[in-house]
């Protein structure tokens, strides 16, 4: 621990930076919060460099400058998240009412009522049911079977996780509506989401399965179990909570909706529609919709976290 005496120059430096900033802002065209922040960053970096430069050497000065810069960069990363969450609560919470989930708003406007937000869950649930087996089978192929093509499959699954949601939507449209002449259904939307979910489930599940010690597998095989029995009765039970996490994270991914996956007034579509109206009341409804959406996302997120932390 540093003694108070050693900390004194740092403290004086910080104080000096604040006072210096106030003086510069007062006597220069720099104004407002933006001006204050910019001036403060510049002055504090210079102060830090000067203090360590004088007390030690140039290397110490470079170290102080980089430390300051990295602290500021990290702080700026937090800024948008804090702003997003703050604004969602500020603008979205007032519009919340119990009636929102039960009443039909079609009297007051032509757009979909929020209570149909339930459809999002149907969509996500359907997509989850389809993508769980595919994702987990892919992960099993990569970790248990380790086939010749494992490297290639892993590479393509990684590439697949970058497929834009709009491309997945177009693909489903091309297959479902153009080729088979179908109409829009929840199932079609769910299939588009499935494409987005598979790589996430597969990659997370692979990470989880990799953590299962090889000893367990070898013990199973040494006892005379077949590989199938070993995987089904030893590996998967051991990885169960992790696999549930993988599925939950995938479900969270599916919230990344695009206009093709939810013509059916799913929650994001409700937000999108109301935003598109461009009126004050539309904006208010959009914010309320976002508030509810974020609550759902956070519930998923928390479940994934809790399950993921419970090592078993």
């Amino acid at each position, binding site marked *: 621990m540093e003694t108070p005496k050693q900390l004194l120059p740092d403290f004086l430096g910080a104080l000096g930076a604040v006072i210096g900033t106030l003086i510069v802002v007062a006597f220069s065209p720099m104004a407002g919060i933006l001006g204050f922040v910019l001036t403060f960053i510049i002055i504090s970096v210079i102060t830090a460099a000067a203090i360590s430069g004088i007390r030690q050497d140039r290397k110490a000065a470079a170290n102080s400058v980089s430390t300051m810069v990295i602290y500021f*960069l990290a702080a700026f990363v937090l800024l948008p998240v804090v702003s*997003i969450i703050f604004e969602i609560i500020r603008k979205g919470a007032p519009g919340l009412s119990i009636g929102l989930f039960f009443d039909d708003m079609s009297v007051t406007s032509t757009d979909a009522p929020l209570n149909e937000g339930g459809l999002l869950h149907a969509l996500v649930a359907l997509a989850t049911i389809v993508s769980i087996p595919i994702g987990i089978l892919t992960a099993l192929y990569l970790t248990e079977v380790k086939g010749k093509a494992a490297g290639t499959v892993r590479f393509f699954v990684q590439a697949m996780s970058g497929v*834009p949601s709009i491309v997945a939507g177009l693909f489903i449209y091309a297959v479902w509506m153009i080729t088979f002449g179908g109409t829009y259904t929840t199932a079609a939307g769910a299939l588009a989401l499935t494409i987005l979910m598979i790589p996430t489930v597969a990659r997370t599940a692979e990470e989880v399965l990799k953590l299962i010690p090889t000893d367990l597998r070898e013990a199973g095989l040494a006892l005379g179990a077949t590989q199938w029995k070993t995987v089904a009765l030893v590996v998967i039970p051991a990885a169960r909570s992790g696999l549930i996490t993988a599925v939950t994270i995938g479900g969270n991914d599916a919230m990344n909706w695009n206009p093709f996956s939810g013509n059916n007034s799913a929650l994001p579509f409700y937000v999108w529609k109301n935003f598109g109206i461009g009126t004050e009341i539309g904006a208010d409804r959009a914010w309320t919709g976002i508030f509810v959406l974020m609550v759902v996302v956070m519930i998923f997120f928390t479940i994934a976290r809790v399950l993921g932390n419970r090592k078993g």
Partner: protein
Amino acid sequence: MHDHPVSIIENPNRRDVPNPREITTEPRFSDRAFRAVVSSGGFIALLLLGLISFFLLFNGFSIFRTEGLSFVTSFDWIAESIESGTEASYGIGAMLYGTLVIGFLGLFFGFPLALGAALFLSYYAPEWLKKPMVLIVDVMAAIPSIVFGLWGYYVLMPHAEEWARLINKYLGFIPIFSMPGDFYTRSPFIAGLVLAVMIIPIITSISREVFAQTPLDRIQAAYALGATRWSMIRAVVIPYGRGGVIGGAMLGLGRAIGETVAVYTVLNLVYDIRPEILLSAGGSVASLIVNKFSEAGPQELKALMAAGFVLFMVTLAVNFFANAIISRTARKE
């Protein structure tokens, strides 16, 4: 008479003891079935990627044939119209250019922040701050893109317009910051800022993973030789993790290129290549598809499929390249 004790093996009359198991390396039926099912499941991802490119190419093929190379180079997007008798012409040149502009702007703003955050979390953050901050970055990754879009439109845009005005005031002599009128809303600059926020989590988490693989003995050796924290990072961490960090940045770029909803809300689509990034005129292939899709006729739909195919190929190429760089860095133990 008295019985001699006879061991089970010698007694041929004992039938209730099974014969010794036949020892074989041949996989049993259950294993063969298991392997077959799992392998075919594993190939579904490959199959899906193949199907996506096939169907998009199949539906957009006639457009590629009539437009040829001009589909990716020309700027105009005119749907066929019977009343005015105009001939259809489809070109996504401006949109492709715009996509790259906002993608690189997102990277320009987002990469330093993400790298700073990753370094902070790996080497600077006090223990008590590490966990909550990692959690916040993960939350950021979980936020749906429509939320970013609305936040960008209602919250960020008013501020960003002011920043754009300031940039124009002091740096307006540089062509890309010039402004022919007073149209600061929904510009590539603002879209780039929103994209930056959206790609920070992925770049941060990949950079952290890469930094975590830096060998501890080298780090300690650097400190033992009297390095400051910064000179240690410059001498050990950066050279070790450079490839992975670049790969992470490219993955972020891939995300930015494919981003649809958020970009659509904060970007004004204009079918022209404009060098001014502060001007309310930009392009994005993904937004073009959303924009035109609802009222597209059959032929325009084909053109949109073709645009989707191009977008798919670009993102796939960027991702391939990024993952190759990352895995090569990761293997270099």
